[in-house]
């Protein structure tokens, strides 16, 4: 299978989280597509009376732009999740925590250095 150069993969992981891996350069389009994929899985969970916990991997993101930031804020605002836990390098943690504040969702959206820290916080929301 070819490796994804730029984009987002979204899936339900075995622990029951919605998991997303962002890879490469992120634009308004890639993030909006990811938000739509999120929405689909979150609605499925809602039908099962389950709250959505979303785990986001940003470790392979190479760049972002203003449009991708706006799309992320929109996603944080419209998707009915319980918590979004993000992990990745420091500049992206700073960016996502800031966007979380802009979206007024920083209590439910947090960014961490490692996957284990991110999962630990996500589990506290279940």
């Amino acid at each position, binding site marked *: 299978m070819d490796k994804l150069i730029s984009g987002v993969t979204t899936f339900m992981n075995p622990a029951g989280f919605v998991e997303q891996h962002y890879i490469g350069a992120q634009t308004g389009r890639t993030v909006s597509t990811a938000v739509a994929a999120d929405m689909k899985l979150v609605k499925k969970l809602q039908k099962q009376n389950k709250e959505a916990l979303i785990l986001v991997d940003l470790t392979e993101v190479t760049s972002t732009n203003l449009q991708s930031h706006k799309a992320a804020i929109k996603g944080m605002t419209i998707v009915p999740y319980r918590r979004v836990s993000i992990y990745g390098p420091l*500049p992206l943690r700073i960016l996502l*925590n800031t966007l979380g*504040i*802009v979206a007024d969702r920083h209590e439910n959206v947090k960014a961490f250095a490692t996957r284990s820290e991110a999962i630990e916080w996500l589990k506290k929301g279940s």
Partner: protein
Amino acid sequence: MVKKRFVRCILNISDLFESSTTRSYRKKHVIIYEGDPVSTIFYIKSGYVKVYNILNDGTERIIFIYGPGDVFPLSTYLSGSRAIRYFYVGLSDVKLLTLPSEQLERKIRNDIAVGETLVNYTVLINLQFLERIEILSVNDARRKVVALLAFLVIKIGTKSPISRLSIYLTHQELSEMCGLTRESTSIQLEKLRKEGVLLGKRATDINVTKLEALKSDMSIVI
């Protein structure tokens, strides 16, 4: 309304501190202790603040200097860290504008222009931080001192061709900034003085053209 805010130009960070309280600290006064919670964000109106940690052997290692117009500890706050990792101390007398972190949060909320400004500023400061930490880990005394001088020209120096540092730093302070003994630092400074990079007896005047040439020879990127 929201759309209008989205297209607004990147603002000046100092605007966020309008009607903030001014606090004055004397030189050597501790402004933030390592381990303190991130409850207040500071904007430097005048003066300089050094950021340091204490090594296992008890020596002080100055990691960074903030000057007028800088904001701290913004990176720590926006990275989501609960506690401060370093000591922040007046390197000179300082005047600071203060903003409780909850108030800053209110100013960021629903305003992407503010968010983008703070993120861009923080990314820049983090790059300088990383460059400093990288230099501290190098095992080459000359390289450390040259890189430190380049950093000082940017942070506390006047514009070229002869940059004058705004504050006088002792050889002890300079050695704490480059992770060398005071003696090794003095030897390197003396060599640079003989080469015409440093001018005068005190290490406060720097020939920027010669410093740039040295940086280029040594592939130092600051």
